[in-house]
């Protein structure tokens, strides 16, 4: 209980303080420029910095950080930045060169500092039974992307990382670490506002913690066989570990190319073999394909899971917390009997 009250108290204290101390300064507050690498970090920074920060995200909502092509405008945004927040863990392979070329020399915050990284290899292989009877090359391909691809040329569809999964924000406990890192970076950039930032951050971290607990309460009681899901993203390793959901990768399935009969067959075999309950595979080229798969296997087709980007402002997943909650709702809708 005190945990809930403390932030409220400190807000109260702080606002009184502000009222008393800062009327003359209030007009002088000029927000510092923060540039984040993608939309989720931008949202976190806004939550923590509030009116003290003006946040620009290099990769906007609904955009793919993997295929990002920096433009001169992005370099200019970086050059004018006071603080730059990146995810780290190799998520933004393009950021180092961009920072160097922009001439930015302020505070660089790595939001994932201190999280326990997850190897890409650990995620699926331990859970997917070996399938000697049919092609498991798709599976290998999937992982090889993570392992061997040279960081300079992997623009295609996977991340620029060596072998750790960078999508650490998909575990809300990591989200709390992210928030703390961003808080520290903002404080370092404007020590004068330490109290205000600390209070806002504390409040935000508490919100994340509460959602984490709620999520756990919603997902944990489900019987294990319900929690078998196929996605086309390989972005939910942390989610799987934190909330005990089994994610299988849709092998060789790509959202941006035309589907072949072979792809369909492989996917259907996997669903039958792994007794998967729900399928989150996006292929907008033809929703009827998904209906065929559902019909043939009895699997349920789930909605959209957000992995690397928030949705457009004003829509259902336009903040980190809303995005996370939307994913949980989508999963529950698909797997609940």
């Amino acid at each position: 209980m005190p945990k809930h009250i403390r932030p409220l108290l400190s807000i109260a204290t702080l606002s009184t303080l502000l009222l008393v101390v800062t009327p003359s300064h209030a007009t002088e507050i000029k927000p510092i420029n923060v540039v984040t690498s993608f939309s989720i970090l931008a949202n976190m920074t806004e939550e923590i910095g509030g009116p003290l920060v003006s946040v620009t995200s290099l990769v906007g909502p609904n955009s793919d950080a993997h295929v990002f092509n920096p433009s001169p405008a992005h370099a200019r945004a970086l050059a004018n930045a006071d603080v730059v927040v990146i995810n780290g863990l190799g998520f933004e392979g393009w950021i180092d060169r961009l920072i160097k070329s922009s001439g930015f020399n302020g505070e660089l915050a790595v939001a994932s500092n201190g999280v326990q990284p997850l190897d890409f290899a650990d995620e699926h292989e331990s859970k997917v039974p070996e399938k000697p009877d049919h092609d498991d090359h798709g599976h290998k391909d999937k992982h090889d992307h993570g392992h061997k691809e040279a960081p300079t040329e992997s623009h295609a569809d996977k991340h620029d990382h060596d072998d750790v999964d960078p999508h650490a924000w998909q575990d809300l406990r990591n989200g709390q670490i992210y928030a703390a890192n961003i808080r520290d970076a903002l404080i370092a950039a404007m020590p004068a506002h330490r109290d205000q930032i600390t209070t806002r951050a504390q409040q935000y971290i508490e919100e994340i913690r509460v959602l984490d607990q709620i999520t756990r309460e919603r997902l944990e009681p489900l019987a294990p066989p319900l929690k078998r899901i196929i996605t086309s993203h390989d972005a939910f390793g942390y989610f799987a570990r934190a909330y005990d959901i089994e994610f299988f990768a849709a092998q060789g399935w790509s959202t941006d190319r035309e589907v072949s009969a072979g792809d369909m067959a492989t996917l259907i075999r996997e669903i039958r073999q792994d007794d998967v309950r729900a399928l989150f595979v996006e292929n907008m080229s033809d929703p009827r394909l998904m209906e065929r798969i559902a019909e043939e296997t009895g699997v349920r087709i789930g909605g959209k899971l957000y992995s690397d980007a928030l949705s457009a402002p004003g829509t259902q997943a336009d903040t980190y917390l809303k995005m996370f909650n939307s994913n949980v709702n989508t999963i529950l809708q698909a797997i609940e009997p």
Partner: protein
Amino acid sequence: MVDFFWAPFADFAFMQRALVASLALGLISGPVGVLLVMRRMSLAGDAISHAVLPGAAVGYMIAGMSLPVLGLGAFITALLVALLASGVSNVTSQREDASLAAFYLMALAIGVTLVSMHGSNIDLMHLLFGSILAVDETALILIAGATTVTLILLAMIWRVLLGSSFDPLFLAQYGRSGRVANQLFMLTVVLTFVACFQTLGTLMAVGLLMLPAIAAKFWSRDIPIACLLASGFAMLSGTIGLLLSYHASLPSGPAIVLTAGVIYLTSLFVGTHDSLLIHTIRSTRHRES
């Protein structure tokens, strides 16, 4: 070997449906394609493939994602374009392909306008003209219906069509009934194309219709035989294309059309009639004598 050819169809319902759809389409695409080639209208299919857009767009606005309604809309506008074109060419002295070009371009522009005004972020063309792997019960019934109607219509006007394919004046002699035959033929063409679009996608559908027909012309001068051959080629392309798509993970539409393309190229080189091989033999004989 059995596994290679049989297992994909035995194990997966979507493969069975795709096979049935491509066999049915192959059956009608033979005669329709050959007759189009004979009448020098090989590119009419491309024109019609664009003419379906406004109807599909209106269908989508009225009923949303309902396959029969979309198909009906597509059918109506394509038929309208085809009939207007043949009507204009009957009255004026302009050739049918010129009027067809004029009308399909207007239809295409109207279609694009409708789609963009509606502002749907779902790509209508993709939804309507999906993949043969997505064929469901409704689509199969539509294909079977279109195939049946097409075959019956063709049988009714077969003699007139055959005559007029050699000699356009032949049709003129028949007067009114000749014109009716011609318009009924356009109806079968539109039916065939709309059925194909539903399953193969606009661009690929034209390939399945025309390539086997053009290939068949390298094997026989006789139209009925060419029609049978073309149907056989189309069915073969469908089957082999699906197997390729299955085993080599190629997109299904292009795999089918490429198979038909290979059949065409083979026919072009070694066909028994008018092929490159025949021409070479003839010209060497010429020189020898």
